[in-house]
């Protein structure tokens, strides 16, 4: 029988665990090879970060141990006037619930990638490896990084709680067991969710939507602190109220809390309650994992959750030819531009707006702008001019500069958008760059098209933001017009710098748009624009302050501001591009 299979192969081993082990070892080998072949600086960086993370874990353990001992102390209870025992007992339940939900959410994207977009599934399923082993290995590969990250915070905290509370030694291994089982159950359910979604949406589209949603939520979470500060007293919650909410969340009615409550009970020596609660959770989680695994592999194998059922997607809106107007360019401007320039501009707008992963990078500056406009509206848009103890000439000049300073916010929002559109204008071509390179396009036309693609939306956003600021601050028509001119010129200079650095650091080998900014050259561009921005905008507004200070007519201030500001902005808009023009001709040849 063996001979009929192959001259060399033995009868395939149908056992799951050895196959899982083999697949995991393979992944480990790939990871090790990546590390081994990395640059020395990257190796040092990885080792440094690993040590930092380990140190951070130890720090959290020590801090939680110390802090929790402190809040348990009679001195604290007496001083604070409240006993936090019940709150402390809720920490394991809250941590494990966070771990479960966090894994459920974060492993979705990773599993989508691992099961549908990684490209090795066909190879693995064609080999005589049990399909269950492939699934388990994929699940473990998908959840391990997230599990390690969440454990970095959760494990030291739970161990710190155990140490500070003097829990039984069994508490510690059981914490690890509970975490692993809950994470596996969450990943199993997540894999089911992935297959349900892929049934409806093509995997790449699902990944795009996920990337878009993730980036937006991430950005909003990142900015929530600023928003919360702005909202101030409106959302202040007292410590007592927060403790009450947390205690309420630790209800026994939620099965997710059972593991944490069981761990506390076992740690405190309540064996029966602890065993029932923890055992119940572990049993439920194991059943959920087993069910998810069996269902997911059956769905995948039967083709129920396969990609082949997805029909080609129609872009109904593109049924009509994409005209310059449709792409957001006026006919007048379209007539002025050479055909190849217009074609690239049009193509870039279409591809940027159709790929949600790109869109998430473009929407963040808009959110940022909206948020800070909201904050400014709440504060009434009045610049704080101090207590008025300074001389009148200083206060007058300072007030003028501050009024224009808020206009600088438009430039900052524009900078965010330009960093993406301009800095990655060439990189975004990716592997398609050959189409442009093999076509008869002048370097100047190519640069001009990329300049326009980045400039027009940024100018639009800057204009909207400036209009809102002007209304909020009550700027005069003259001040508005001058600010608009300053923004037009400053953004042009910034565009020139970022586009040039984008050319110098162009990367055409990415597969995921979020990874197109591969090198450090783009970062240098951003740093340089951070220096350029205050210089250029300062040259527009500083002469106004000087005119006031020297008691000259303000018209002189505007005139000199225009001369200096426009001069430097035009210089930065054109000279860097002129410097990289030869580089453009050699792009994508490395």
């Amino acid at each position: 029988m063996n001979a009929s299979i192959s001259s060399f192969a033995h009868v395939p081993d149908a056992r799951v665990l050895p196959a899982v082990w083999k697949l995991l070892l393979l992944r480990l080998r790939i990871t090790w090879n990546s590390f081994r072949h990395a640059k020395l600086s990257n190796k040092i960086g990885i080792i440094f970060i690993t040590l930092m993370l380990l140190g951070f874990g130890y720090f959290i353990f020590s801090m939680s141990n110390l802090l929790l001992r402190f809040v348990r102390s009679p001195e604290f209870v007496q001083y604070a006037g409240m006993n936090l025992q019940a709150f402390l007992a809720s920490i394991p339940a809250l941590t494990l619930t966070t771990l479960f939900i966090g894994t459920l959410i974060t492993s979705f994207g990773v599993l989508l990638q691992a099961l549908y977009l990684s490209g090795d599934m066909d190879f693995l399923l064609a080999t005589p490896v049990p399909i269950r082993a492939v699934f388990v290995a994929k699940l473990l590969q998908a959840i391990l990084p997230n599990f390690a990250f969440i454990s970095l915070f959760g494990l030291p905290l739970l161990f710190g709680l155990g140490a500070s509370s003097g829990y039984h030694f069994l508490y510690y291994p059981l914490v690890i067991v509970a975490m692993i089982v809950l994470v596996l159950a969450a990943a199993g359910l997540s894999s089911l969710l992935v297959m349900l979604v892929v049934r409806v949406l093509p995997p790449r589209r699902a990944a795009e939507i996920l990337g878009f949603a993730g980036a937006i939520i991430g950005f909003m979470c990142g900015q929530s602190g600023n928003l919360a500060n702005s909202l101030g007293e409106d959302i202040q919650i007292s410590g007592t109220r927060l403790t009450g909410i947390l205690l309420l969340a630790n209800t026994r009615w939620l099965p997710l809390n059972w593991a944490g409550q069981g761990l506390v009970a076992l740690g405190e020596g309540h064996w029966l309650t602890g065993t029932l609660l923890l055992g119940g959770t572990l049993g439920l989680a194991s059943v959920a994992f087993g069910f998810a695994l069996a269902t997911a592999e059956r769905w995948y194998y039967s083709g129920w959750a396969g990609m082949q059922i997805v029909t080609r997607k129609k872009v109904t809106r593109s049924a009509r030819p994409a005209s310059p107007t449709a792409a957001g360019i006026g006919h007048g401007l379209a007539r002025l531009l050479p055909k190849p320039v217009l074609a690239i501009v049009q193509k870039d707008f279409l591809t940027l707006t159709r790929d949600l992963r790109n869109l998430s990078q473009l929407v963040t500056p808009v959110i940022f702008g909206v948020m800070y406009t909201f904050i400014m509206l709440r504060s009434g848009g009045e610049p704080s001019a101090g207590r008025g103890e300074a001389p009148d000439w200083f206060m007058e000049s300072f007030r003028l500069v501050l009024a224009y300073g808020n206009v600088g916010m438009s430039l900052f929002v524009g900078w965010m958008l330009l960093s993406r559109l301009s800095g990655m204008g060439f990189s975004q071509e990716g592997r398609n760059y050959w189409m442009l390179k093999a076509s008869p396009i002048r370097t100047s036309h190519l640069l001009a098209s990329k300049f326009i693609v980045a400039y027009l939306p940024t100018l639009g956003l800057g204009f909207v933001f400036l209009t809102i600021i002007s209304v909020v601050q009550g700027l005069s028509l003259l001040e508005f017009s001058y600010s608009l001119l300053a923004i037009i010129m400053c953004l042009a200079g910034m565009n020139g710098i970022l586009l040039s650095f984008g050319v110098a650091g162009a990367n055409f080998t990415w597969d995921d748009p979020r990874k197109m900014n591969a090198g450090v050259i783009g970062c240098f561009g951003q740093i340089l624009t951070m220096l350029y921005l205050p210089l250029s905008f300062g040259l527009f507004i500083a002469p106004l302050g000087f005119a006031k200070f020297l008691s000259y007519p303000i018209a002189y201030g505007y005139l000199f501001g225009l001369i200096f500001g426009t001069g430097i902005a035009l210089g930065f808009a054109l000279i860097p591009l002129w410097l990289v023009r030869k580089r453009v001709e050699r792009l994508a040849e490395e």
Partner: protein
Amino acid sequence: MPEILIETRDLIKRYGDKVAVNSVSFEVYGGEVFGFLGPNGAGKTTTIKMIVGLLQPTSGTVKVAGYDVQSQPMLAKASCGYVPDTPNLYAKLTGRELLRFVSDLYNLDRSQVARRIDELLRMFDLTAAANDTVDSYSHGMQQKASLAAALMHDPKVLVLDEPTVGLDPKSARLIKDILRQLADRGAAVMLSTHILEIAERMCDRIGIINKGQLIAVGTMDELRTLDKTGQTSLEDIFLSLTGGAEETEIAEILK
């Protein structure tokens, strides 16, 4: 005497110490299909990329339709159509938008573009998918879209890198017919392929490159005279010229 539409002279491309293409010189005439053969890593794609202006040679010259690719790149590129080995196309454009985009890059007259696009879509059986984004196309459809894009401006020179890879027999036949027709109309067609039967049946002349050096150029009859072992099929000649001993050894192992 037919016009020389592709001409390379002492073409060299070095990557550091490695010489990818070493002093390659050949001509491709108008009205002929020129097959460019060689083992993996022999320098075929590098040579092709230098011809279409995607790579600058370390030294030597390339002329396309009489224009020097380095000193007159615009004119050379405007005369040339290129189909790469991997059809990387803008995934988020529809087939129709892609062709319109290419037509604008080549500055084609808008009044004729719509008709030309419809013609090409029909010819490559892509009309039904014309308004679908390219990322929903199969590999074969993308390959056909890539060829349609290369033909959009009706080039005098067409360079194709492995054009039949991933195509079904019907599409492969269609492409072969189109290339023949183009050559019959006076264009120069240069294609690289690993499928020696295609080269033998389609190409008027064949160039064989090995380890960066052009080791043979000529018609099938001329290649036969070059081969001292007296082989008659292109496969035997190719293996004999490029070192077929390894292949024989592999075949022995697999027996």
